[in-house]
């Protein structure tokens, strides 16, 4: 590109091209949602099976999931501060997501803590599902990604319904479904779209 005067039509075209280039920076590959979603789904499923087989204690898989989540969090923090690949362009949405993720994990810790000091898990998990819905809605809206916006409302509906179930096994089914609808499906759609865009 050179330094030269351009016609009005060329100006408009150039503005559109460059804005689209900047928009490209704001796309998410969905890999984080897929990983987080599958982890939640598998732990829900394993807990459900375990409730019938009684191989381990009720919260055996959730305990390991907690440890794994903390390790993943630690890995992300270390990677971010010490081995961070320098982003050459910063977006407003990127900054919003960083803050959103911090708030999300802190609130998760609040709910998990409350379950450890007396809140019934059959009420705590629907709260977690509600929190997933909140995160999914903000992400979807900021990225203008419809599957996530729709998924957020379905996730909330599942979370609300989960308040009224009468067994922890059913709570696990609702939790697994929420992970599937809220994270896994939109994550895979986002990943396919991202790959198409980067071809």
């Amino acid at each position, binding site marked *: 590109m050179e330094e030269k*005067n351009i016609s009005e039509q*060329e100006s408009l075209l150039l503005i559109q091209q*460059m804005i689209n280039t*900047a928009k490209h920076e704001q796309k998410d590959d969905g890999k984080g949602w897929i990983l987080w979603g599958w982890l939640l789904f598998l732990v829900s499923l394993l807990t459900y099976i375990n409730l019938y087989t009684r191989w381990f204690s009720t919260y055996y898989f959730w305990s390991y999931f907690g440890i794994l989540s903390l390790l993943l969090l630690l890995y992300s923090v270390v990677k971010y501060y010490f081995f961070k690949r320098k982003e*050459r362009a910063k977006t*407003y949405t990127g*900054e919003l997501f960083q803050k959103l993720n911090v708030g999300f994990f802190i609130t998760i810790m609040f709910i998990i803590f409350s379950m450890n000091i007396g809140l019934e898990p059959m009420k705590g998990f629907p709260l977690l599902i509600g929190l997933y819905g909140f995160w999914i809605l903000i992400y979807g809206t900021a990225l203008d990604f419809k599957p996530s916006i729709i998924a957020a409302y379905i996730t909330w509906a599942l979370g609300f319904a989960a308040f009224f179930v009468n067994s922890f096994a059913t709570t696990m089914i609702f939790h697994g479904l929420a992970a599937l609808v809220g994270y896994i499906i939109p994550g895979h759609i986002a990943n396919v779209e991202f790959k198409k865009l980067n071809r």
Partner: protein
Amino acid sequence: MFKDLDPILHSQLRLAVMSLLIGLKEAEFTYIKEKTNATAGNLSVQIQKLKEAGYIDVMKQFKDNYPQTTCKITSLGVKAFEDYVKNLQSYLSVKK
């Protein structure tokens, strides 16, 4: 009555830089160079002009012993860009 198009913005490379920065919080010089396909020398000159007009902020720092230049659009730049687009639209609607 039409307002004249801002001469600072009505040039190919400067407009490309502004259009790119309008959608970003900030961007490195190398990123802008890559996305605009401009030469480093030409881009430096045009970025300097935008800076002198107060449309962008240019931050120079050292990261891991390498110089790094980062550009960010200012509120004056956002206003100028919006006015430019508005004027452009009125030109084009009359020409139709």
